[in-house]
């Protein structure tokens, strides 16, 4: 049962939500607003009527985890607020796999570098791994890269990340599923990006976790 904190809105004012990632965080491939998915999560947490909360989302299309590590000090650390409970929701397991030699372990190691920086600042870190790509695949994709990417998702799901919480999105209804499923126009813009309806499912999963831990 909710206590005085929730009844009178203390719960929401002392939270700082920050999203970092790639185009899946940016989530505007279908023409909807930039940072669509994080904003859906924000509205769920803050209910939009609550003032005094902190929120930002800086996902960039095409961004690799190596870039995110390099930019952490300049772009993420300054948003940490020592007077609040700080949650950093982060994902990248796509763009590094643009060559055949980048392995799942490579991505895992870089993600852990990022997480180490974030935890040193004080963030509670929530990571998530995406879903399998759908057919038809992009022209630059191939079986090796898909296999390496799967390795990363498996390693992360098996506890390989040092984040506080990790979400494996391969189990999402209508978005997840096994390798090689065909795109569904209701939820997929292309082989990986989601429509607003797909992003709503993704946001609901993240919101569910936040409501559990807030």
């Amino acid at each position, binding site marked *: *049962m909710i*206590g*005085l*904190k929730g*009844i*009178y*809105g*203390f719960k929401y004012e002392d939270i700082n939500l920050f999203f970092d990632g790639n185009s899946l965080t940016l989530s505007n491939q279908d023409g909807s607003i930039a940072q669509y998915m994080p904003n859906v999560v924000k509205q769920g947490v803050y209910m939009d009527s*609550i003032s005094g909360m902190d929120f930002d989302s800086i996902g960039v299309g095409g961004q690799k985890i190596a870039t995110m590590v390099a930019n952490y000090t300049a772009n993420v650390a300054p948003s940490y607020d020592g007077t609040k409970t700080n949650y950093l929701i982060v994902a990248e397991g796509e763009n590094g796999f643009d060559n055949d030699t980048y392995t799942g372990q490579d991505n895992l190691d870089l993600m852990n570098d990022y997480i180490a920086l974030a935890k040193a600042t004080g963030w509670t870190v929530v990571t998530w791994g995406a879903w399998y790509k759908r057919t038809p695949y992009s022209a630059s994709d191939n079986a090796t890269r898909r296999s390496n990417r799967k390795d990363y998702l498996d390693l992360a799901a098996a506890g390989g990340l040092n984040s506080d919480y990790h979400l494996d999105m391969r189990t999402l209804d209508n978005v997840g599923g096994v390798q090689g499923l065909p795109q569904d126009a209701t939820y997929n813009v292309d082989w990986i990006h989601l429509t607003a309806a797909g992003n709503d499912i993704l946001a609901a999963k993240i919101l569910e976790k936040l409501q559990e831990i807030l």
Partner: protein
Amino acid sequence: MLSNCIRNTIDSKRGGDVLSALFSKYSFYNMYATKNLNIVGSTTSHLDYNTTTPLDLANPLSTNQPTYLDSDSDFNNKPSLSYITNDYVINMAADYRISDSTGVIDLVFTSGTTVTGDFPLFASSQSTTTTYKLVVWVANGKIKLAIRIGGNTYAIETGVIINPLQKYSISVQQNGTSAKIAVNGVFEAITTILITAPATSWFNTIPNRDNLSIGALIQSGSFYYNGKIVFAGVRPYISDAKTLELFTGF
């Protein structure tokens, strides 16, 4: 001042909402929330969630009427009462909780534009003297509990700084051994200001009281609150964890 007849006398007082559930869950002796008011002209009655032996509080004069706001964004769009100048609500109850050697007082409020001075949130006192009282107040930027029994006083305050125009939830407890004060769900370090009365002092050690009030300390030379108060309650002490749980939920 607001004129608003017969507000919230049926739905919220007799159950169904989450505040009623908290009242039952924590066995409050008396509990007051700004959702549960009866405002008739220049009189605001703060209705007790205890409907068996209720102690409703009301402003004695029109000039003491706190200002009602139906939906206050400071409190998650719940109703609020603002206390300014000499606004307060009171019940002239004799020796409130005189048998209680332990207990918890809970309050949710915003501080005023200044916290420099003495601003009582909740009190039970003798109205004609300064010598019998229990008062919880914002005092010079701290949360303070003061108990005076004749010529003796037990007074403690938090180390945490209370800033102007901020929202707080506090719980002041006596477990039979010592008093503690929690602010926003955390027990704060306490400084003892005066201890000529025992550290175990609570309602049972303070005779000769003739009132229970929110927003004022009514005594010879009264003090008044400056800010909003939306919740006040007195309940039994069970454990430190139960004291904090009211804030966080369960």
